[in-house]
C-alpha cells in the first residue's frame, strides 16, 4: 500500500496539515502536496475507471502528462471535471470525486466491458451499431454515452472571474528547470527584457530530484541562488504556475497563469491568459518519460520511474514497501537509489538490455539489489492494485520465469523531449536513433517575421539529457558570456529501444498492453488498425483514438507510432508524429473568455431613444450590435397582438419608427457623382439637389448586396442610406474601391450613422402631426414625394425626407443625435391627439411586404441579382459600367429560367412557413424532387387579414394566377396562387398625398 514516509519531502510543510475529501471520504495531506501526492499518501492507489473498459486506474505520472488520475474538483459554481490530480495543488477543504464509473469506484457495472474486450476493438463503433438504422439514435448512442466519457459537465454558472493580460519581451523562456534558469541568467545579464515562466509552483525541475551537483553544490541550493539573482534583475520577469499553452505566428505566445486555483474564492481572478509577443522564444520544457508496453501495465501501482522518484523525494510518499523497477536505460536506476535512500525495498531491477554495467546500475548492485539483465515483465499481477510481477526473457515470447511479489512497478522506456511549443508554429523534428526520440531539428525551426528562427529548444527539450550538457546548451543558446555553470551527474550507458515487452509477445499479452491508458488503446488496437490499412499516423490516431482527449498522448504517442511503424515494417521517422496543436495542456474556458461575459460580452449600440424604448415595453431584436424594438408590448399583450396593433395604427392614423440605426454615409468631393455611378446600379450623378433616389448596390459577382435611399445634399455631397446591418460593410466597401482601385477620384467618405437620430413618421396623420410642431412647410407642394428639405421643426434642426417604406404618407426626419431623444419626446407629445405610438421592426417588415418592397437578407441571400427581383427600373441602361454590370451580362445571369420575384397568396388564407420550397414535376439526378421556387418573406397581414408572401418562382411573373404547391411538415401541402407582389395600394395613392 502507498503511504506517507516519516521523514523527507522537500516540497511539503508537515506543520500545515490540510484536509480534503475524495468520494466523500475525509483525507489528510500537507501544504505543498498535489492532489495526487495527497491521495497516494492516504493509500488511495485507485483513483478512477478507464474510458472504455472501466478498468481500475491509478496515478501514473507526477506532472502534466498524467493520463489517468483525473477527478471532478469542487462543487456548484466551482465544479470542474477532468482536473489532473498531478498538477492540482492541494488546498484545505478540497472536494474531489473520481470519474467514469457507476454506481461506485470500487464496484462498477461498466467493468463488464473489460470481459468483452475482444468485441470492443479499435473502431468497433464504426463496425457495429449499423443496423437497424433508428437504433443508433435511440438505443446504441444513449448506452455508449452513458458508459464512455470522462467527467461530468458543470451545471452551474462559473463563480470565478478570469482576465487577459498582455506582455512584450525580447525573450520568453518557457520552463523553469535548470536549463531555463541558466538561459535566463545568461540573457538577463545581457540586459534583454526576459520572461521566465514555469508551469508548476516550483523552480528547478527534475535536476533537484535527481541529486545533480551544480557549481559544487546540490541542485536545490543552486536553483535557489539562481532565482534570487534573477529576482534582482529589473529586466527579468519570473512567473510560476504559468504554462505556455501555444505558440503562434510571429512570436505570439499564449500563456495560462493559474493564479487562484490553490486559493479558491480569495477574490483574485482564478486564471489569467497572457497574450505575449516575444522577439524570441526559448523552450526549456524538459522531457517526458515513456512507459513500457507489457501486459497489465495499466494496473494501479504501475507508474513512471521518474514519478516514483518524485513522490518519494518531493512529497515523502512511498508507492509501496516493495517496488520493482523495469527499464531499458540507466536513468531508472536513480529511482532505485531514491527508494533505497528512503528505506524502502527494491526486490529487483528488470533491465531489458543484455547487459547493464554503467555507473548507476553498479551503484544499485552495490546496495544489494538484484539486477535481471535481458529480462522483461511477462505480466503484472493484481486487479485494483499491483500484487506482483512475473518475469520473462525480453527476447522471448513471455514464458513466466519467476514471480516477484511487489506493491508497485516503476517503469522507464526512455525519454521524449517536450517538443510541443517548438512544433506549434512549424518547427520540424528529427528522429535520434541513439536516444530513440524525436527531437527538434535545429535546421528547420519555426520562423518569425524576419524569416529567422523564432524558437530555440534547449536542454532536455532539445534532446540533451545530462545535466552538465543541459546547462552548457542553455547558456550557449542565448549567447551567454563566459562559461556555463558546471554540473556533475552520473555517466549513463545508452538505452536500447523497447516497444513491446517481451519482444515476441503473443496476442493474449498484447491485448493487455496499454499504450494510451486515457483512451484505452492497446498494442493490439494499433496493430489491428495497421492490418486494416491505416498507414498514416493521423488516420490511426483518429481510428484508434490513440493520443486523443485531455492528455493528447503525452506518454503514449511515441510508443504508439513505434508499434505502427513496426506493424507496417517501416522506420519510425517514415511514420512521423501526429501534429502538435495548442494548447499544451487543457486551459479553462473561463480563461479563454476572460472578462468577456455578461454585459460586456460584446458592445451594445444604442440609439438616442434606446432608454425610452426600454421603459416603454420594447421587445428587443438584435440587429448587428444594435438592439431594435421588434414591437412595443403593452401590459397583458402578446407579441402578435402588439404587432397588429402597431400596423393598424400606422395604416389608420400615425406611428413612429426609430430609424436611427439605418446606415448614413456621406460621400463628398468633385468626383463623388462619378464614384456613386460606379457603386449603384442606377444613375446618382444626375440626382438634383433636394431630391432622393432609391438605389441598389451589387458586388462584382452581380449579386445584390445592399439598398437604400440616396440624398443629394449639395452640388458635391451625397448622403447614402444603407441597411442597418450594412453600414460598416458598405463604408468599408466604398473605401476599398477609393483606396485601391480609383485612387485618382477626389472623394471623401464619412460614416455618420451615429451622428443623427432618425425617426419615420408614417400614417395618414403624419403631416398633421409634424405641422403641430411647426416651423417648416411640409405641404405636398413644398415637399413632394422623394424630396427633402432642411429647416427648423419644432425648434429642432431637422432634415426632412419624404420617403416611405410603409406605403403610407411618411416623413423620415433626421436631427442631431444629441437632440434625438428630445425630438422623439416632442413627437410623442404632439401626436397624442392622433393616438400616436411607436412601431417596431416586425410591423415595418409586414408593411413593406404588403407593399411588395424587398428586404436585403430576405429577398436576397447573396445569389440574387436585381433582375430577379424585377428591379430593372433601378438599373441604368445608359451607364457603361457599374460594379456588378459585367457579371450580370453572363449567360446564366441573363437566363429567362432564373427564379423571379412574385407575390404568393395561400388558397386557405394561412401563412406559408418561411423558406418553404415549391415542388415541380419529376426528380433530379440525385433522386430528389425537382423544385420551382421558394418563399423569401411570409407574414400574416392584419391589413388584409390573410397570409401574404413573396417568393422567387421559375418564370413567376409569366404565371400570374397559377397555383403551386409547397410541401411543409408532416406531409401537408400548402397551395398558393402566384400574384402581384404589391398587395396593398397598388397605385401608391396613400404615400403620395
Amino acid at each position, binding site marked *: 500500500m502507498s503511504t506517507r514516509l516519516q521523514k523527507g519531502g522537500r516540497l511539503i510543510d508537515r506543520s500545515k496539515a490540510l484536509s480534503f475529501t475524495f468520494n466523500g471520504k475525509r483525507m489528510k495531506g500537507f501544504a505543498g502536496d498535489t492532489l495526487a501526492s495527497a491521495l497516494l499518501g492516504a493509500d488511495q492507489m485507485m483513483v478512477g475507471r478507464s474510458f472504455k473498459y472501466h478498468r481500475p486506474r491509478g496515478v501514473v505520472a507526477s506532472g502534466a502528462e498524467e493520463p489517468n488520475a483525473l477527478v471532478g474538483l469542487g462543487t456548484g459554481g466551482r465544479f470542474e471535471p477532468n482536473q489532473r490530480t498531478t498538477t492540482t495543488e492541494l488546498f484545505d477543504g478540497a472536494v474531489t470525486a473520481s470519474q467514469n464509473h457507476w454506481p461506485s469506484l470500487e464496484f462498477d457495472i461498466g467493468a463488464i466491458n473489460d470481459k468483452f474486450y475482444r468485441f470492443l476493438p479499435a473502431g468497433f463503433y464504426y463496425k457495429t451499431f449499423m443496423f437497424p438504422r433508428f437504433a443508433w439514435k435511440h438505443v446504441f448512442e444513449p448506452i455508449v454515452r452513458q458508459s464512455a466519457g470522462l467527467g461530468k459537465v458543470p451545471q452551474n454558472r462559473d463563480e470565478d472571474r478570469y482576465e487577459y493580460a498582455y506582455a512584450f519581451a525580447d525573450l520568453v523562456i518557457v520552463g523553469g528547470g535548470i536549463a531555463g534558469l541558466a538561459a535566463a541568467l545568461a540573457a538577463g545579464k545581457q540586459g534583454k527584457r526576459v520572461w521566465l515562466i514555469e508551469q508548476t509552483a516550483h523552480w528547478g525541475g527534475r535536476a533537484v530530484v535527481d541529486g545533480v551537483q551544480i557549481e559544487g553544490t546540490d541542485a536545490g541550493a543552486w536553483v535557489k541562488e539562481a532565482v534570487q539573482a534573477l529576482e534582482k534583475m529589473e529586466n527579468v520577469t519570473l512567473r510560476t504556475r504559468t504554462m505556455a499553452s501555444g505558440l503562434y505566428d510571429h512570436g505570439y505566445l499564449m500563456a495560462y497563469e493559474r493564479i487562484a486555483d490553490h486559493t479558491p474564492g480569495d477574490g483574485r481572478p482564478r486564471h489569467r491568459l497572457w497574450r505575449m509577443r516575444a522577439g524570441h522564444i526559448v523552450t526549456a520544457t524538459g522531457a517526458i518519460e515513456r512507459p513500457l508496453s507489457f501486459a497489465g501495465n495499466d494496473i494501479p501501482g504501475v507508474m513512471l520511474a521518474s514519478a516514483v522518484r518524485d513522490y518519494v523525494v518531493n512529497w515523502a510518499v512511498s508507492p509501496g514497501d516493495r517496488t520493482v523497477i523495469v527499464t531499458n536505460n540507466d536513468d531508472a536506476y536513480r529511482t532505485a537509489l531514491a527508494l533505497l535512500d528512503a528505506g524502502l525495498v527494491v526486490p529487483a531491477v528488470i533491465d531489458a538490455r543484455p547487459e547493464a554495467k554503467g555507473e548507476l546500475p553498479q551503484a544499485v548492485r552495490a546496495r544489494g539489489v538484484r539486477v535481471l539483465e535481458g529480462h522483461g515483465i511477462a505480466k503484472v499481477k493484481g486487479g485494483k492494485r499491483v500484487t506482483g510481477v512475473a518475469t520473462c526473457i525480453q527476447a522471448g515470447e513471455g514464458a513466466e520465469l519467476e514471480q516477484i511479489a511487489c506493491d508497485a512497478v516503476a517503469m522507464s522506456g526512455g525519454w521524449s523531449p517536450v517538443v510541443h511549443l517548438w512544433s506549434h508554429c512549424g518547427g520540424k523534428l528529427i528522429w535520434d536513433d541513439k536516444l530513440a526520440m524525436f527531437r527538434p531539428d535545429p535546421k528547420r525551426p519555426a520562423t518569425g*517575421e524576419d524569416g529567422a528562427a523564432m524558437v530555440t529548444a534547449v536542454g532536455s527539450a532539445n534532446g540533451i539529457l545530462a545535466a552538465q550538457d543541459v546547462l552548457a546548451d542553455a547558456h550557449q543558446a542565448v549567447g551567454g558570456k563566459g562559461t556555463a555553470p558546471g554540473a556533475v551527474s552520473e555517466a549513463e550507458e545508452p538505452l536500447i529501444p523497447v516497444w513491446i515487452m517481451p519482444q515476441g509477445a503473443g496476442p493474449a499479452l498484447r491485448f493487455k498492453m496499454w499504450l494510451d491508458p486515457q483512451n484505452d488503446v492497446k498494442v493490439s488496437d494499433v496493430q489491428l488498425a495497421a492490418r486494416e490499412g491505416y498507414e498514416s499516423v493521423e488516420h490511426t490516431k483518429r481510428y484508434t483514438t490513440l493520443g486523443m482527449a485531455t492528455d493528447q498522448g503525452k506518454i503514449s504517442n511515441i510508443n504508439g507510432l513505434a508499434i505502427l511503424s513496426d506493424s507496417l515494417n517501416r522506420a519510425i521517422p517514415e511514420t512521423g508524429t501526429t501534429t502538435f496543436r495548442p494548447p499544451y495542456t487543457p486551459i479553462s474556458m473561463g480563461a479563454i473568455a476572460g472578462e468577456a461575459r455578461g454585459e460586456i460580452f460584446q458592445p451594445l449600440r444604442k440609439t438616442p431613444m434606446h432608454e425610452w424604448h426600454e421603459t416603454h415595453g420594447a421587445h428587443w431584436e438584435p440587429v448587428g450590435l444594435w438592439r431594435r424594438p421588434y414591437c412595443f408590448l403593452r401590459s397583458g399583450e402578446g407579441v402578435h397582438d402588439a404587432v397588429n396593433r402597431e400596423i393598424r395604427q400606422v395604416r389608420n392614423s400615425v406611428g413612429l419608427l426609430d430609424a436611427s440605426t439605418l446606415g448614413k454615409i456621406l460621400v463628398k468631393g468633385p468626383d463623388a457623382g462619378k464614384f456613386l455611378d460606379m457603386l449603384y446600379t442606377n444613375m446618382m450623378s444626375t440626382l438634383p439637389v433636394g431630391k432622393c433616389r432609391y438605389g441598389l448596390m451589387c458586388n462584382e459577382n452581380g449579386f445584390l448586396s445592399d439598398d437604400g435611399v440616396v440624398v443629394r445634399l449639395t452640388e458635391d455631397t451625397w448622403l447614402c442610406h444603407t441597411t442597418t446591418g450594412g453600414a460598416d460593410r458598405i463604408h*468599408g466597401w466604398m*473605401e476599398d474601391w477609393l483606396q485601391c482601385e480609383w485612387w485618382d477620384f477626389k472623394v471623401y467618405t464619412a460614416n455618420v450613422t451615429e451622428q443623427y437620430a432618425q425617426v419615420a413618421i408614417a400614417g395618414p396623420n403624419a403631416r398633421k402631426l409634424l405641422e403641430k410642431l411647426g416651423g417648416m412647410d411640409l405641404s405636398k407642394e413644398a415637399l413632394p414625394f422623394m424630396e427633402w428639405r432642411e429647416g427648423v421643426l419644432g425648434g429642432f434642426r431637422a432634415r426632412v425626407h419624404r420617403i416611405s417604406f410603409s406605403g403610407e404618407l411618411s416623413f423620415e426626419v433626421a436631427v442631431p443625435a444629441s437632440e434625438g431623444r428630445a425630438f422623439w419626446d416632442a413627437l410623442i407629445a404632439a401626436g397624442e391627439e392622433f393616438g400616436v405610438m411607436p412601431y417596431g421592426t416586425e410591423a415595418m417588415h409586414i408593411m413593406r411586404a404588403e407593399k411588395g418592397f424587398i428586404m436585403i437578407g430576405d429577398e436576397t441571400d447573396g445569389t440574387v441579382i436585381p433582375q430577379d427581383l424585377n428591379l430593372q427600373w433601378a438599373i441604368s441602361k445608359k451607364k457603361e*459600367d457599374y460594379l456588378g454590370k459585367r457579371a450580370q451580362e453572363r449567360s446564366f445571369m441573363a437566363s429567362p429560367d432564373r427564379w423571379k420575384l412574385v407575390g404568393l397568396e395561400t388558397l386557405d388564407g394561412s401563412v406559408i412557413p418561411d423558406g418553404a420550397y415549391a415542388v415541380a414535376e419529376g426528380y433530379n439526378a440525385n433522386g430528389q424532387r425537382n423544385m420551382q421556387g421558394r418563399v423569401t418573406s411570409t407574414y400574416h397581414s392584419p391589413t388584409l387579414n390573410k397570409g401574404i408572401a413573396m417568393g422567387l418562382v421559375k418564370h413567376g411573373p409569366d404565371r400570374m394566377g397559377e397555383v403551386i404547391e409547397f410541401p411543409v411538415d408532416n406531409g401537408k401541402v400548402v397551395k398558393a396562387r402566384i400574384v402581384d407582389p404589391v398587395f396593398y395600394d397598388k397605385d401608391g395613392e396613400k404615400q403620395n398625398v
Partner: protein
Amino acid sequence: MLTLECPYCGVKAEETELQAGGEAHLKRFGPGSSDDEFEGYLFLRKNPKGVHFERWRHAYGCGKWFLAARCTATLEVFGTYSAQTKEPPADLQAKIKAKRPDWEGYK
C-alpha cells in the same frame, strides 16, 4: 497572429487590428471583357507556397488599405507598401529576389 507594419501610420499592427483582403495587384475587368478575362479577375487566385502579395486594411487603426509581401510558408514579411500602386516597389522586388533566387516575380 501576424504582425504587419502599416505604411500609412507606421504602427506595427497585430492581425486582430487588420482585415485581410486577399490577393493584391488584380486587374479589374468590366463590361466588354471576355468571359475568360472576367473569370480570371473574379475567381482565379494564386495560392503559392512561398512569396505572396496581399491586401490588408488597418481596419481598427487608421482605416487605410495597404499591400504586403510575405511568404505563406515561413511567414516571413518582406515588406508593406501603399495600395496605390500597380506593382510592388522595385526595391522590394529586388529584396525578395535576393532572398529567394527562385522567385518568379509577382505576376
